[in-house]
């Protein structure tokens, strides 16, 4: 009888250990599958540092395959030029580092920025290299939490530390935690043939802009294409209006407490937007339309103007995307507004989208990251970005290099930037995330006619004050 009990216990133990062993080998198998064909599992990052140096020690193990995960947002037709540049950098880096294989993971921008990456940051397992936005709500928050690799020594070693035009949105206490891939400005794209047809000249004052909008509207054309299902799209225009009415310093002034949302100037910016909404200058049913729909309305000629970022420029030289409008698009900045504060020639200028790197890297992964930075952030790739993709460089380029730009639209954008008295950033990178979140909710209320400009700015100031009080 005792024996039976013993046997039962024995069976249980065997079963348990078997299942545990299965778990163990299961892990190993996935590790092998991930690392590729040759089968040798590389040390994973978390179990790393010690074994990492061991693996890198001898020549034989150097070629041992290992993977580095890379999250990018270059998906879809409009991003194809950027993806091609990324692919070339990936290929070149893989050739340089024996055994390296990048594992590319393309995720839609908003999903990555607001859902996936925050969750991964919380769990402590972000990809090794990932698309990252600068500013208080993104890079700086993660840097404070110790999730981002301090790239200061790397860019110093590579000698590119002083080549960047602006690293402020990635810099915390003098250390750099990410590198912008390009710069951008936001302004109006317009349909040149349509402007000619209706005898509209490129607006240089607010009255001219409003007259142009009125002319288009009289002719049954939506003046401004819009897709405000994602609230950041209308906020682009609001941001620049704030820069005009309340002055360029207002954008940094909200978190600093020197500027108030509910001041008459900022309210005037929202009020102008509200006025245009009420006059029907934006696409009907815009709250149900995505960012991509905005481009469609513009390209198909349903709308005459579109307020968007300079990154959209590449679309208009590609016949497969722009169709008849290829090469027929011009760009102008938001005109000065009457009674606006500060320098009215300032434009929005962002150096906020780029790549960040996980703080959790073993030695070999770090080598791969260094090589990636070397291959991605150099004059050649910056120039390619500018020529092929119309993305303004984030690094200083020589006059020779800049002279190669032929695309008239990109030239126009660069000229706009050159003539500007300076640049102000987008408030999404300066204010606290809770304030930005509220601004998204409020602008949609304003568009739906559920809130007035004064109510919107009042609500924002309330949240801003709470946020400023608890840093």
């Amino acid at each position, binding site marked *: 009888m005792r024996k*039976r009990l013993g046997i039962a216990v024995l069976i249980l133990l065997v079963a348990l250990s078997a299942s545990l062993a299965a778990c163990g080998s299961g892990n190993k198998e996935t590790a092998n599958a991930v690392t590729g064909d040759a089968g040798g599992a590389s040390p994973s990052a978390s179990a790393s540092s010690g074994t990492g140096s061991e693996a890198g020690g001898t020549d034989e193990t150097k070629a041992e395959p290992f993977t580095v995960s890379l999250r990018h947002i270059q998906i879809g037709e409009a991003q194809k030029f950027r993806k091609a540049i990324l692919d070339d950098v990936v290929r070149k880096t893989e050739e340089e580092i024996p055994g390296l294989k990048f594992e590319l993971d393309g995720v839609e921008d908003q999903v990555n920025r607001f859902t996936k990456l*925050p969750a991964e*940051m919380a769990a402590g397992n972000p990809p090794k290299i990932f698309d990252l936005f600068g500013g208080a*709500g993104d890079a700086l928050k*993660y840097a404070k939490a110790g999730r981002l690799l301090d790239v200061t020594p790397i860019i110093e070693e590579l000698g590119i530390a002083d080549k960047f035009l602006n690293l402020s949105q990635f810099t915390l206490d003098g250390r750099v935690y990410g590198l912008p891939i390009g710069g951008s400005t936001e302004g109006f794209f317009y349909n040149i043939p349509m402007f000619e047809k209706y005898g509209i000249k490129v607006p240089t004052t607010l009255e001219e802009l409003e007259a142009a909008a009125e002319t288009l509207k009289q002719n049954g054309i939506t003046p401004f294409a819009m897709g405000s299902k994602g609230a950041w799209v209308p906020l682009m225009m609001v941001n620049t209006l704030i820069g005009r009415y309340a002055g360029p310093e207002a954008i940094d002034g909200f978190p600093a407490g020197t500027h108030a949302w509910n001041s008459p100037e900022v309210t005037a910016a929202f009020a102008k937007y509200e006025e245009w909404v009420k006059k029907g200058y934006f696409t009907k*049913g815009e*709250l*149900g339309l995505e960012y991509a729909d905005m481009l469609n309305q513009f390209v198909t000629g349903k709308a005459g103007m579109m307020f968007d970022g300079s990154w959209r420029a590449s679309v208009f030289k590609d016949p497969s995307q722009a169709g008849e409008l290829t090469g027929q698009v011009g760009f102008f900045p938001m005109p000065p507004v009457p009674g606006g504060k500060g320098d009215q020639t300032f434009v929005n200028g962002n150096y906020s989208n780029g790549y960040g790197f996980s703080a959790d890297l073993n030695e070999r992964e770090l080598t791969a990251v260094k090589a990636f930075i070397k291959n991605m952030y150099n004059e050649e790739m910056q120039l390619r970005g500018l020529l092929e993709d119309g993305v303004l460089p984030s690094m200083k380029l020589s006059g020779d290099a800049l002279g190669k730009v032929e695309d008239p639209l990109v030239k126009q954008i660069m000229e706009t930037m050159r003539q500007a008295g300076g640049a102000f950033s987008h408030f999404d990178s300066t204010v606290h995330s809770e304030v930005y979140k509220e601004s998204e909710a409020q602008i949609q209320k304003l568009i*739906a006619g559920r809130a007035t400009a004064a109510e919107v700015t009042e609500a924002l100031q309330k949240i801003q004050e709470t946020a400023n009080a608890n840093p």
Partner: protein
Amino acid sequence: MKHPMRNPWIYTLFTVPTLLLYGMFFLWPMLSSAYYAFTDWNGLENYRYVGWSNFAAAFGDPDFRRAIVNNLIFIGFSIFVQIPLIVLFALLIASVRRLRGFYKTTVFVPSIVSTSVIGILWGFIYEPEVGPLNRLLALFGAGPVYWLAEPKWALPAVLIANAWQWMGFYIVLVLAAILAIPRELHEAAVVDGANGWQRALNITVPLIMPLISVVVMLSIAGGMRVVDIVLVMTKGGPVGATEVMASYMVNEAMGINPNYGFGTAIALIIFAFALLLTSLYQLTFGRRTEGGYF
């Protein structure tokens, strides 16, 4: 010891692995989320114990209160619109002889299609300019309706898409119950001179009441936790018009300015609501209709 399987210790040994797994993947997450609901944890930084303030903040937020109302609308729509239609369709299909299998399959198909697909499909139907619905309306001279962009239309639009997705499933359930009713009852009624409607209303419906009661229960539970169709079609917009509790939770816990502490508090509120409503139903109407059948 003759029968080792009667020894409680053996049972314990055998159940330990399962209990461990259950504890790891169910009990521990549930308990820890109950704990996080009382903190301001954002997933990254250090968190503090904040007492009941997450719950107070939720009920103090007009957007969340509207989300609760929208959940109740979802429930009301399923009980007062969907279920009568479900019973009607089930009665119709039960009374046809030819092609019954075809009808059964056709109505069931939407419930095996992924919600994302349904959301996109209906998004196309509701498309303001080229969507078939507005084209149909245009034939009668009605101007374009911005179904998913106008706060007053968005919720009905989502309700209809959601109803379309789930009705087939319940129709098949109810149909099975109808077909299980003994033929003799109907034959006796025919002999007594009852017409089709009288038989449907006085024989079929009372006999399937227990099943309808279950369908009502499921609808309440479903209406409380509806979220996927909302996220796919409108993300809770425009201006919160289609926000339900679960989409509010997703938007607050993740996204811009994530707050997992607040999100778990919302999750607990949803749980409490679902428990309250289903038990209320069970204690009132549910008990009366179910009788001895279930």
